[in-house]
């Protein structure tokens, strides 16, 4: 259990570095470190499916952030009500840390779920679906409606991005849009 706390502290430090860093590249890399820490945490909690997905999506997001958004010089505003913002942030961090530490103690043992539905899945999943990976049998057989909805959400997101940022579209009068090499 101690390695879990070490990883969580590492992730919190990474997140603080990502916020406080003035250089955009450094802060993006710190966000990537937080994501990799999260994937190791999921691996320790014995959820390899989620760990693989988290790792892979984190890498893709990191590449997109570095390649697509880093060249833009984003405006950086640090002035304003920093005392109020800091107080709100610190209070949120304290509340979430407290709740997280409480809920950590009540984590169920591996293979002994709290909910009754999960017990039925664990007991009858292999016989009813024939898939030895229980996660696949849940997301594609017992809960396939949810996966259909998730696929629809992704499809809509791709269509939305392609429609908004398309190559040939309506332009304003003095705006020139063109493709760049690389």
């Amino acid at each position, binding site marked *: 259990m101690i390695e879990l706390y070490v990883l969580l502290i590492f992730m919190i430090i990474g997140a603080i570095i990502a916020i406080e860093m003035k250089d955009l590249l450094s802060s993006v890399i710190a966000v990537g470190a937080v994501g990799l820490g999260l994937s190791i945490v999921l691996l320790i909690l014995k959820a*390899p*499916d989620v*760990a*693989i*997905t988290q790792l*892979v*999506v984190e*890498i*893709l997001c990191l*590449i*997109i952030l570095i*390649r*697509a958004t880093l*060249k*833009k*010089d984003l405006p950086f505003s640090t002035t304003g009500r920093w005392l109020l913002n800091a107080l709100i942030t610190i209070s949120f961090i304290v509340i979430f840390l407290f709740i997280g530490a409480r809920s950590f103690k009540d984590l169920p043992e591996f293979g002994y779920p709290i909910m009754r539905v999960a017990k039925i899945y664990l007991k009858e999943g*292999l016989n009813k*679906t*024939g*898939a*030895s*990976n229980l*996660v*696949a*049998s849940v*997301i*594609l*057989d017992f809960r*396939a*409606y949810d*996966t*259909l909805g998730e*696929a*629809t959400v*992704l*499809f809509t*997101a*791709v269509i939305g*991005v*392609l429609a908004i*940022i*398309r*190559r040939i579209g309506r332009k304003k009068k003095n*705006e*020139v*849009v*063109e*493709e*760049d*090499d*690389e």
Partner: protein
Amino acid sequence: MSKEDEKGMSLIVKVITRLTVGLILLYGIYIVLHGHVSPGGGFAGGVIIALSFVHLMLAYGKDVALKKLPKTAMSFFESMGAIMFLGIALLGFTGGYFFLNFISKGEPFRLFSAGIIPLCNIAISLKVGAGLFAIFVVLVLLKFEWEKKE
């Protein structure tokens, strides 16, 4: 992947990419096909397949990558995955209800088992891989004029 292509990164990166990109694509296909036996599944495998094309595009430039997977093929695969997933779900009505596992279950721990689950995995991987690569291409390639002046 021609040697005389001048765009993209340096020679070292290109050579390493030529060696590794096929292995990454193969690993993604492995993760997809074994989604019902071992950890992984359609979403993770699809993202790995998309990452292999992203790798190609980062190293060699957009022409080589878009020659391997043109934009029309991307939209075809994306739509094909969605239609395939919905079609598998609708085929369940032949036996009774939506998302019925109508193919025989087979023996557990075998590659050909679990009925419709591998087919659904393949459909989702097509959709996710083509869609995420399309998003990457669009986000990276498009630049506005005011960004170039800096």
